């Protein structure tokens, strides 16, 4: 893949798959809520190529809007997708151009602080991973991120769209334990969306992780998933090929959003 195409997808995934995870972090983190209590803010990111997304941060969470938001107090423009990608990956680059909200630019310090928290949640240490309470937040956060990433790739990455069109389709649900709160993806032509809670129709495939540790390790690609299924640590009910196909596509997200780990 050419660098420009890679950076385009990278930026797209940050805007539409990674940053929407702020909501979960704010809801789970007292520290994040404290940061936003006195200074809620909103920001819209735009790139020259036309990518854009807006985020409205309050102490109750983060509303993600997949496009422009006139109500965003800050509007930041990136000169290229690689400029945006480098910024999101915290590489040293010149800052984006503020198109709106010059007076509020200091609020981006809060965004940076939240980004640091997001990173801690999404790249847990072994110590954090050992905490059940951490995993309860981490697993749905990481799963939703990966599923949102799949939706983006299957809509905008050539090889992923080919895989999407040729592979099995349907509604797949992922949950921890028999009664766990599900996250789902509707994966069919014309319908690529993710959500939380029990979907309104019967899923074609349901993946049940025996516990949150198995789920966390599986999400991080640190478990032999074929053996785990045989051992009963992961149960796949229904259209197994759909779950397998999604697993493969979810793995394709990682090199874009965390190139260091992928390397």
């Amino acid at each position, binding site marked *: 893949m050419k660098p420009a195409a890679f950076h385009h997808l990278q930026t797209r995934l940050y805007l539409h798959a990674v940053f929407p995870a702020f909501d979960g972090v704010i809801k789970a983190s007292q520290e994040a809520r404290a940061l936003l209590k006195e200074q809620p803010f909103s920001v819209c990111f735009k790139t020259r190529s036309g990518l854009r997304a807006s985020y409205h941060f309050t102490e109750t969470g983060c509303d993600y809007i997949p496009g422009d938001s006139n109500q965003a107090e800050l509007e930041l423009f990136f000169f290229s997708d690689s400029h945006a990608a480098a910024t999101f990956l915290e590489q040293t680059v010149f800052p984006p151009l503020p198109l709106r909200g010059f007076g509020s630019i200091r609020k981006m310090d809060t965004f940076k602080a939240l980004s640091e928290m997001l990173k801690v949640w999404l790249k847990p240490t072994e110590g954090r991973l050992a905490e059940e309470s951490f995993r309860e937040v981490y697993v749905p956060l990481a799963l939703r991120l990966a599923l949102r990433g799949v939706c983006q790739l299957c809509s905008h990455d050539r090889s992923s769209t080919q895989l999407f069109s040729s592979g099995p389709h349907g509604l797949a649900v992922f949950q921890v334990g028999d009664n766990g709160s599900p996250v789902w993806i509707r994966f069919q032509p014309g319908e690529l969306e993710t959500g939380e809670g029990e979907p309104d129709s019967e899923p074609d495939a349901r993946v049940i992780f025996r516990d949150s540790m198995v789920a966390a390790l599986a999400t991080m690609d640190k478990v*032999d998933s*074929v*053996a785990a299924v045989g*051992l009963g640590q992961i149960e796949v*009910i*229904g259209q197994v090929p759909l779950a397998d196909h999604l697993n493969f596509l979810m793995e394709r997200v990682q090199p874009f959003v965390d190139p260091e780990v992928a390397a």
Partner: protein
Amino acid sequence: MSEHFGQSLSLFERAAKVAPGGIYGHMSPAACLPGASPYYAVRAEGCRYWDVDGHEYIDYMCGYGPIILGYQNAEVEEAATKQRELGNCFNHPTERFIELVERLVSLVDFAEWGVLAKNGGDVTTWAIQVAREHTKRKKIIRLKGSYHGVDPWCTPGHGGLIEEDREHIHQFGWNDLLALQGLVERYKGQIAGLIITPYHHPVFADQAFAEGGFLEGVQSICKAEGIVLIMDDIRGGFRLNIGGSHRAFGFTPDIACFCKAMANGYPISAAVGCEELRIAASKVFLTGSYWNSAVPMAAALKTLEILERDDVPQKLETVGRRLSEGLEAIGKKHGHKIQPSGPPAIPFYRLAEETNFVRQQQWCAEVMKRGAFFHPHHNWFVCASHTEADIDATLQIAEDALIACKERWD
């Protein structure tokens, strides 16, 4: 996993420590009914086998196809033993090689030559190389959802592949001649071969026969465009027709690939081809450490002899029909449609009321508990050892299982 399969799980735990996946490929628990199907077998006889937990099953997978006469067939075992006493692995092939290739060439109407290997994938991959050598073209056409082995050009897996592996592999749908025409137009003069199964046998879906002159159409397009037509008859070969499945479906390929039913469980596969491809075939290198082993060839010779002598394909068809009619009647009796698909000798049955296979998995799990092996997603196989009594016992198991499921579903 329930205590019912305690020993299976215990062995699997050991395996998972030393083997990635524990059990890999099509026999992985992940590909069947994890926790609700046996993982390890101990012994087998006729149409039955026993798992490590001591459960007996009337088998409808037959080793995923190789067992066509029944496990431990006395005549085949005797032929194999006789050859084993002489030796199996030498510096050279034995006369068994010539005898077996001669036999295959005499059985398959269009065949003028043959080669032997070990697995189906050995010969399907070799066959597309022959097509490329013969035509000096790059592209290969295959069917969506078909299985031809685990080489990079065709594996259903994802790991370890690069995009270039399939740069020249193109797919079209079963029964979709228009799509094939489109591919042929698009890649005119570039297509070396087309590999096709004589009927469609995908997993997690009904099997399908050709409609509206599809196979004849495929053959005609291939002939007109100089494309080598390869029949992957790994599953159906010698089960449906002793001369190859193309005889049962009315078309003639240029190369046919066989494996599963050849030697009643002994490892061997074969490709046979038409005269026009002989020179190309001679140029494509093929070999393997065990490809000249004589014991499987002796077993294959005896198996093919029995298949012809006893008209086994007809017997399989009769037994398969009894199973099919019985299962359909059970479904009807209990308000469910048990949908048959594919040839009765290689059937697949599923509950037609759903598309997600959840009830199907529950039904097959209940069947397994009661002593028959029904695969929930993959086509089944019947063998010559299945008697009417075995089928009737199976039908009782299937009905009891369905009743148990209904209690959960209703």
